[in-house]
Structure formats: structure tokens, C-alpha cells
């Protein structure tokens, strides 16, 4: 692949022909379509998902059974839902640790309004989503306008929202929910084994995919994540965009809380404790860069499904939740470590290769610095999943990648 690109690049840098006028045209992409599609972090995780699925189907008893898809999807529905807005938040370089607490608060609000106050589920649910929006507004305000670090803010609201939820109900649980709504939450689409909750989930997925990938707002989020200063200079309203992403996490978390409440017929303050870390793990597994600026919805969905399939298959195998935890943790560490490992291996091989990209190949001193060979230094890592963390790292990498000094 490198050779091909090099040829392509070399061809387009006809240095001496300066004045060719305005007529110059550019290829849209420097990689062929298959490269762009298959050599990406997202595709890697999708491939892994498929492999795991196949292995599970062939070698785990009962995995291909009729109930698996149903339970698997119901189990990860909240995870998938919250992962969507969380992707947006992380792409802007922020984080929201309070989602599971918001979910817990939402389940308590629904419980109190429905069971104790006697409101119908739709009304109670709407109010719960409103509470979720308020939670998001509070986070978003502190992060986007007061400019506090989201990590600290949401560690605070992680405790605050959960504390309010637990405080409101103590350790009692409200369980007396309208049976019709509980049945609806656990029902399937027609005769299929697909749970009905997937209808709203798929709608959300479509909405978030379009929002992130096909709107000016979504593109602004990537800019903010890469470099919020540059985004502001381009006319992106950074504060309002960040506020919006936090409101979205709040609202969707609350919606997930309603589903959770109805599915388990159970409104408790400590519902969904610890889910925030699972959501973040799914998002990061799906190829979203923790520093912001990179990631895609399809990768995140694959990440969430991978966690779901692994858990389901291992549970069926009688493997306990602990081993599942270990596997998720290892996957997470390996997925973020991979780019560094790849870069390290490259560095080793290039060093061993002696006079690889040495001075003799570079353009003469007086010529202006042209992109003589962009492929050699940065390309390989950039594509599979390397975080282009910051300029300093890049130059540091370039530095150490360069040849040892020779005194002629």
C-alpha cells in the first residue's frame, strides 16, 4: 500500500511546473474506497464482533437458541442508547460520568410519579426525561459556560444525581407498575424475537448517526475535539455545541432509565450503578478517541454489541461476571495501546532497516519544503487507529524515529 501511495503522491508533486493556473484539480481521496472502508478502527471492531459472534454460535451451547437475541438486545439497549450521545460528548473531548446516575434518578422519578403520585406512565416518563434534560443542562452549563473540566464536574454530578435518587427513595423500591406498560417494554416486534425496545433504539441510532456525520453541527463537534480554538475561529459555537451534547446525554439517559424501570418493574435509587463505565468502555472500544476528534457511530454500536455478545456467550458458558470484566478491561487497554505498539514496532523495524528514510532521499536544501513523501512518517499509524494526540507527540515520534546521528 505504501508504494502505491508513494507513486500517487510523487506524481502529483510535479514541483518545477509551478504556474499551471487555476485549472488544477484534485483527487477526492488518496486511498482507494476499500482501504478507507476496511482499514479502520471501526471496521476492526466490527470484524472482531463478527468473529466473536461466529465462535459463540458454533461453540457455545444455547447461544443460537431463540432467546439469546432477545435477551442480548434487551440487556444492552440502555448501553446502546446512552453510548450514542456519549460518543458526541467524547468526540468533543469531554466526558460525562453522570449518565448512570441520571438514569437512576430517572427511574426514581418515574417510580414516584407513577406509583406514589399516580400519574400515567407517558406523563411520568415525559417528566423524567425533563429531569434528565435538567441534569444535562446543569452539567453542560458548568462545562461549556463556566469552563470547568468535565471530568471533575461529572464526578461531582455522578455523586449528586445518584445521591438525590437514593435520597428520594432510600433503599425502598417501587415495584407496582402498570402491567401493560411493563409488558410493552418487554414485548417483541410481532412474531419475531427482536424486542420492541429496538424500534426506538434504531430511531435514535439513525438520528445520532445523521446528526454526527451529516450535519454542520456534527462536523463542528469533531473540530471542537481536535482543537476548540480553531473551531471557534471557524465560527463554531463551541459552548452551545457542548451544552447540546450534554443535554442529549441527559435526555437519552433518562429515556434509558424509563425503559430500565419498566423492564425490571423496579424503581430503585441504585438502579444501573456503574453503567457509566460500561458505556464509556463501549464507546472507546468502538474506536472513539478519548482526546476527542475521532470516532464513528457504527464503531460504537459494534463496541456495545461486542460487550453484549461477549457477556451473553460467556454467561451461557457458565463463566462468571468477573471473567467478563477482565476481558472487557483487557480489550479496552489493548485497543488504546494498539497504536502505540504499532508505532513502536515500526520504529524498531525502521531503525533496524538502517538507511531507510535517510537524508539522501530528501529534496535539496534550497527547494521549498514540499510534501515529498507524506506516507513514510505519519501515514501508517494515522489510518488504523493512531491518535494524533498532539503536535508535540508527533514531533517526538518523528524525532525518535529519525536516524541516530552520524558524524561525517
Amino acid at each position, binding site marked *: 500500500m505504501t508504494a502505491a501511495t508513494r507513486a500517487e503522491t510523487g506524481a502529483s508533486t510535479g514541483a518545477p511546473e509551478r504556474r499551471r493556473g487555476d485549472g488544477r484539480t484534485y483527487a477526492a481521496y488518496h486511498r482507494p474506497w476499500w482501504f478507507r472502508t476496511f482499514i479502520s478502527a471501526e471496521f476492526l471492531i466490527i470484524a472482531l464482533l463478527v468473529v466473536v459472534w461466529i465462535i459463540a*454460535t458454533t461453540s457455545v*451451547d*444455547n447461544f*443460537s*437458541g*431463540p*432467546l*439469546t*437475541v432477545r*435477551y442480548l438486545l434487551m*440487556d444492552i439497549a440502555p448501553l446502546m442508547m446512552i453510548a450514542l450521545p456519549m460518543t458526541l460528548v467524547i468526540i468533543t473531548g469531554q466526558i460525562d460520568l453522570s449518565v448512570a446516575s441520571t438514569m437512576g434518578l430517572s427511574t426514581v422519578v418515574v417510580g414516584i410519579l407513577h406509583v406514589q403520585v399516580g400519574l400515567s406512565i407517558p406523563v411520568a416518563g415525559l417528566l423524567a426525561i425533563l429531569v434528565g434534560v435538567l441534569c444535562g443542562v446543569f452539567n453542560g452549563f458548568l462545562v461549556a459556560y463556566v469552563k470547568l473540566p468535565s471530568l471533575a464536574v461529572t464526578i461531582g454530578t455522578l455523586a449528586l444525581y445518584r445521591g438525590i435518587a437514593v435520597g428520594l427513595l*432510600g*433503599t*425502598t*423500591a417501587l*415495584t*407496582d407498575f402498570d402491567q401493560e406498560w*411493563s*409488558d410493552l417494554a*418487554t414485548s417483541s416486534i410481532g412474531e419475531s*424475537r427482536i424486542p420492541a425496545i429496538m424500534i426506538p433504539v434504531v430511531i435514535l441510532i439513525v438520528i445520532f448517526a445523521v446528526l454526527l456525520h451529516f450535519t454542520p453541527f456534527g462536523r463542528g463537534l469533531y473540530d471542537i475535539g481536535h482543537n476548540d480554538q480553531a473551531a471557534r475561529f471557524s465560527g463554531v459555537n463551541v459552548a452551545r455545541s457542548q451544552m447540546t451534547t450534554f443535554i442529549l446525554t441527559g435526555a437519552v439517559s433518562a429515556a434509558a432509565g424509563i425503559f*430500565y424501570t419498566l*423492564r*425490571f*418493574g*423496579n424503581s*430503585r435509587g*441504585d*438502579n*444501573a450503578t456503574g453503567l457509566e463505565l460500561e458505556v464509556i468502555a463501549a464507546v472507546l472500544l468502538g474506536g472513539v478517541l478519548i482526546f476527542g476528534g475521532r470516532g464513528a457511530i457504527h464503531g460504537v454500536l459494534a463496541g456495545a454489541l461486542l460487550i453484549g455478545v461477549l457477556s*451473553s456467550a460467556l*454467561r*451461557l458458558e*457458565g463463566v*462468571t*461476571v468477573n471473567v467478563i470484566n477482565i476481558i472487557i478491561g483487557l480489550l479496552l487497554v489493548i485497543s488504546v495501546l494498539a497504536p502505540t505498539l504499532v508505532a513502536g514496532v515500526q520504529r524498531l523495524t525502521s531503525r533496524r532497516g538502517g538507511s531507510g528514510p535517510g537524508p539522501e532521499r530528501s529534496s535539496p536544501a534550497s527547494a521549498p519544503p514540499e510534501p515529498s513523501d507524506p506516507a513514510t512518517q505519519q501515514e501508517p499509524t494515522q489510518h488504523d487507529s493512531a491518535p494524533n494526540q498532539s503536535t508535540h507527540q508527533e514531533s517526538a515520534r518523528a524525532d525518535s524515529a529519525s536516524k541516530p546521528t552520524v558524524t561525517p
Partner: protein
Amino acid sequence: GDSGEGDSAEGESGGEALSVTFLPKNLGNPYFETSNAGGEEAVEEFGGSYSEVGPQEATPDGQVEYINTAAQQGEDALVLSANDPSAICGALNEARDVDVAVVTFDSDTDAECRDLFVNQATAEGIASAQVQLVAEQIDEEGQIAILSASANATNQNLWIELMEEEIAADYPDIEIVDTVYGDDDDQRSFDQTAALLQTHSDLDAIVSPTTVGIAAAARYIADSDYAGEVAVTGLGTPNQMREYVEDGTVEAFALWNPEDLGYLSAWAANALASGEIEGNEGDTFEAGRLGEYTVGADGEVVLGEPFVFDSENIGDFDF
């Protein structure tokens, strides 16, 4: 995807080895360790396959995942102690729809979500045993507090209610000043004990109708200035409490034999899954070394009366 093997559950239940899954409230709870051991013993006796799963924390949603898994695996019987009477009903009924026999023990769900409930003792018996123990230890007067498991624990709540009634009726000088919840978590129960003693300086006794709670309370009091002044009693296992009975922190406490409870539950599951009984009132089944049991009203089977442990007899037990 999945292929249509919907009848695998039935296919297996016709065969020899009956698969039984035990699902306690949470893992790492010594009480359930013991009852599961009894269950395993019984399953071995009737030649089934035994497995044991459970959530880390005693929450209903944690249990639902395992109920679902049991349904997916097409287990023949599921024996569980419910973390919530109604929250897990949906999942249990789905499991019963694919022919999993559901037996609850220790803590029940609503009667329509399970086939049988194996009760350790009648609720009245348990409540009354604890009231008598505490009344004796504080000479029928003073302030007592209750350290329970979670606020939603079905059985604990019922016992507490009955204890309150009995005290109000028969012991006018005993006052229940507080009921707190340690969630069957050591650290929390321990801290709750400290908070109780701090808040109620004239407290005479703590009654903890849960094994984790009583051990934590005893441990806190044994090392504190309250040793000998504040009585601790309730429901506990001999191994956990031995140290405190021997050093005098705890005079006496009650429990049934949890091993027998698990043992009986497993046999009840066997009887159901093998089609020997339907779970109707009046059905009878054999329970190995424990002999014959009869299903009572609401599909309830009662193990027996609680047993009181004290320094005299605690040496005779090891569970």
C-alpha cells in the same frame, strides 16, 4: 443468528440428568454458601447436575440476567432467593414459559411468579423467636433497634412487621427506636451499627434478622466500649457468630439450618421438574434424609421451627 431450537428445554427435561441452578440473593454471602451446599448435596443424591450463579450485589436487576440465562440454557429448575417480590416476576414467568421449574426459598416472590416457595419457618415463628431472645436479654425493657438487610427484602420486612406487632402487644416497656438497612454488605452494616449507637445513646439491644448484619453488629460492639452493655441478637450462622458467643458479646441467636433449607429446596425442585408434583396444596414429596413434606397454601413448604444457638450448644454445629 439463531435457529429454531425452541424445544430444547423440553427435550432435556425428558432425559435423565435434571439440571438445577441455584440463584442466591448475592454471591459471597455465607448464609447462601451454606444453603447452596445443602442444595448441591440433594442434587447429587437425585443424580442431577448442579450449578450456582448470582449477582455480586443483592439487586433484582442483577438477578434478572441470571434468570434469563437459565431460561436460555433450558435449565430444568431454578431455585432462588428473591431480591424483590415483584421486580423479577416478568423474567421468572418467561423462564416458566420455557418449562423451567421455579422454586423460591428463603425470600419469596409474589405467589403467581413461582411454582413453590420453601419457607425456612413460618414468619410468625421467626419473628417470635427473635422477640423472645431480645426480651430475655434486656429483661423486657429498654430501647432496641433493628439492623436489617435491604429495605426491600421481602422476608425481613415481614418479620420486622410481625416483631413490631408482637412487641407492641406483649412487651410495653420495649421500644423500637430505629430500623436501619445494611444491605447485606459488611462495611455498610458495620457503619450502620456505629451510626445507630452514636444516634441512640441509650440503646439496649440490636436485633439483626440477617446473617451479615448480626455479624457486623457483633464485630463492631465486641471491640467497642458498648461490649456487655448493648445486646446483639437476631439471625446468624454459628461459624460467623462463634467468636462473639464465646467472648460474651452475643448471648444467643436463632436460625434454622440453612443447609437443610437448600437441601429441601433442591428436592422440591426435583419433584416439580420431574413432574412428580404440580405444586398444588396438598401435594406431597420425598425430600431425602428430611423425609416427606406437604405443600401448603399458596404453594408454600415449611422447613420447621427456628433453632436457638447459645454458648452451650454452638460447639455442636459447623456451618
